[in-house]
């Protein structure tokens, strides 16, 4: 029993807690919810349109649930009927849930009308939902400064509209209409094999996390038990990618500030990390390394030694980079008090990941959930206090050190197990089923929702963290100078790959 608990077949204490919430939902909202079930480590409720507001109100006000954050709202078509997918989470109670709201059956246009009708009601309960409303009048009437999508390097998925008083920003608005292809349309009715090879494109700086998320979801569906060695290697690679992504982030900040030496040094360091990844996976950006039920290649002893040798170099140079960047009073003076977001604002916008932790909320699903074998490793969750640009950069540096610590442990404690054969995707037999899965990617919590039958993907919704970061930017930009817009946007680490209209 103890061993099975340890291996994660039976739920950990956190999951027992979710079961209790599931029972509570059954008790409190019995009449209003059509169905409630547990998908992986998240709750999933199906309800009708009419009961949505009462359910949301109950979820927010009842201390048993205590939902504070609305992460995203998506409109998609499931089984010929339009549905609304609302992603909610509670940081204090440490769980998250998805609401699938069934709209009245109709064509696309009528459902969009319905969507527009529902949104104001949601906004009254969760203010963050206003980000999903159409706000064209805001764009036209107040704007006097416009940054088009190509202006900021790496942030080409949205246009920035600002209304200013001299050089101080009064109001900010982001229009994401430029990124038109929705993943739920793009990957709809593709096979699992196709999705698996293409999914790493949703994250341009850390491509392994979408792959990992998909594989965890399908493994959960198939009830496949993955060996300990495989999970360790997955953790190892995801942490390597986290380091690479964070160093890339730091290089972007250095470029904007004009610290040339730090910029080039950071890119060189990222090159070292990517070189390690490349020798193992054969690819740098789209690794296609994590497969359902396992990984592409096992690590040989020589490669483990290469990682060990590389780590000592990386930790030294990251330390040098930190000294180069943050021991400079001109740079810290520029970063300090720029784009500060306090805890309530960050939570209200649904920000996750380092952006939320910089504001002082301790929310890291590597620690808070039973995610892979992260419980075997000793590491700290870096937390800031003021949530300004300086703290966001510092949090990244501290996370790099913690990732190095995790990799060091994973390499030295790598279990010597026989690797099982991978799951043959073409032979998967499944009834119509839904699954949610989430991982802690460098930008925040990356979550996917899939509906599949056999090996065919019926629906695929990406619930990425960058949209919330963008909404957070809308909230924190007022009061800052126009000069600092690029710096603040870059400091929020917005990933263009997952942005959508």
């Amino acid at each position, binding site marked *: 029993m103890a061993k099975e608990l340890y291996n994660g077949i039976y739920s950990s204490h956190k999951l027992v807690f979710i079961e209790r919430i599931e029972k509570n939902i059954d008790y409190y909202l019995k009449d209003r919810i059509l169905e409630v079930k547990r998908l992986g480590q998240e709750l999933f409720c199906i309800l009708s349109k009419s009961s949505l507001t009462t359910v949301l109100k109950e979820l927010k006000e009842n201390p048993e649930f205590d939902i504070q954050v609305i992460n995203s709202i998506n409109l998609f078509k499931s089984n010929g009927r339009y549905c609304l997918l609302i992603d909610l989470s509670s940081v204090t109670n440490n769980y998250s849930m998805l609401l699938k709201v069934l709209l009245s059956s109709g064509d696309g246009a009528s459902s969009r009308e319905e969507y527009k009708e529902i949104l104001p009601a949601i906004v009254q309960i969760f203010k963050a939902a206003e980000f999903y409303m159409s706000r064209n009048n805001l764009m036209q009437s107040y704007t006097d400064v416009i940054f088009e999508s190509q202006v900021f390097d790496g942030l080409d998925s949205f246009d920035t509209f600002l209304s200013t008083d001299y050089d101080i920003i009064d109001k900010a608005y982001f229009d994401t209409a430029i990124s038109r292809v929705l993943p739920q349309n793009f990957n709809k009715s593709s096979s699992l094999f196709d999705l698996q090879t293409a999914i790493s494109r949703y994250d341009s700086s850390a491509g392994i996390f979408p792959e990992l998320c998909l594989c965890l979801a399908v493994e959960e569906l198939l009830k496949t038990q993955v060996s300990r060695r495989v999970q360790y290697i997955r953790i190892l690679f995801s942490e390597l990618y986290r380091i690479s992504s964070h160093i890339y982030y730091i290089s972007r900040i250095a470029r904007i500030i004009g610290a*040339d030496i730090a910029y080039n040094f950071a890119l060189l360091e990222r090159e070292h990390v990517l070189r390690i990844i490349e020798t193992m996976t054969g690819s740098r950006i789209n690794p296609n390394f994590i497969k359902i039920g396992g990984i592409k290649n096992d690590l040989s002893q020589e490669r483990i030694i290469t990682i060990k040798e590389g780590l000592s170099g990386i930790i030294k140079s990251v330390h040098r980079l930190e000294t180069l960047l943050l021991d400079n009073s*001109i740079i810290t003076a520029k970063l300090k008090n720029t784009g500060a977001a306090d805890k309530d604002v960050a939570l209200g916008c649904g920000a996750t990941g380092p952006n939320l932790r910089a504001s002082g909320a301790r929310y890291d699903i590597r620690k808070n959930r039973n995610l892979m074998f992260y419980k075997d490793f000793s590491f700290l969750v870096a937390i800031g206090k003021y949530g300004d640009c300086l703290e966001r950069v510092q949090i990244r540096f501290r996370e790099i050190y913690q990732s190095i610590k995790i990799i060091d442990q994973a390499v030295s404690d790598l279990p010597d197990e026989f690797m099982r054969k991978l799951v043959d995707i073409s032979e998967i037999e499944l009834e119509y089923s839904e699954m949610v899965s989430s991982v802690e990617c460098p930008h925040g919590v990356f979550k996917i929702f899939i509906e599949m039958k056999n090996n065919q993907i019926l629906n695929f919704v990406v619930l990425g963290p960058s949209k919330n970061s963008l909404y957070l930017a809308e909230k924190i930009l007022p009061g800052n100078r126009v000069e600092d817009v690029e710096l603040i946007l870059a400091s929020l680490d917005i990933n263009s790959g997952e942005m959508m209209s």
Partner: protein
Amino acid sequence: MLIILKKVIYIFLIFVINLAVCSYLLNKLSARAELRRGFIASRAGGLGYPFLEISKYLTKSSRLNIWEIFLFFFSFFIWTVIPFSQTFILIKVDSDLLIAILFYIILVFSFLVNASRSSYGFVWNNFLKKVLMMFSVFIPMLFSIASLVLINRTLSLREIVGFQYQYWNIVYQPLGFILLFTSAFAQFKLTGLTRKNTVLFSENSEKEGAGFGRLITRISNYSTLFFLLVIIVILYLAGWQNLYFVNGNIMFVLKFYILFFVMLLLDKATPRLDDYNYLISINWRFIVPVSAVNFILTIVFFILRNIYNLI
């Protein structure tokens, strides 16, 4: 007449050679400092790079405006009043220090006007901000030059160099030297040669295309830097005075390049100085008061020594 022509040619040659060497050093050193390989203009260490850069500018056609013509003339005029040795000077004036500074201010002002001009009209907001940034860093420079003039009791650059035959002015005015160097460094960062400066290469002027006008701007950039370095060398580091048995001219060149090297390294080590508030705050809260204190101390010293004969 022939002598003057000879001098003009010499000065022009010195300017061009310095231009080639400094642009070569600038590109090579900044590439090394930024951990990249640098340009690959030619196999022989990239010596042909400066000439290639000129041809790059000349191949594009663009219109010249009046401010670029101003820039062109003043970047050469400035060298007529600056002495390179006791006799090597085009126009011998007693107060050449004042005239040189005046020319320099006109040069910088034309820079700012030129940079604020864009195809959408003149950007007043940017222009005023840049003028404030630029001329606020002039104040410590003027203070330290004034205190130096008080000590040397002359406005002629040749006499100032002559005054330093025994001890360099840096011995009398160490704080003034640091302040002048800081001010010159800030000016170099703002109107600098690297792409880091936001005063000259603003978002408007960047997109207007290269051409002969850009070449002139670039040359004037170098001219301002050379002026700042030469004025520091002449005022504080004894210009062309011999050092024991070393020839004065060699010393002049050595000091010039050492300062150039130090400036480049400092430029690479510090981030872009485009933060208006930060620049204004450090300037008005620290550099200007210190230079004012230095100036007042010098005046007190001057009065005690020359009026009351106490020192």
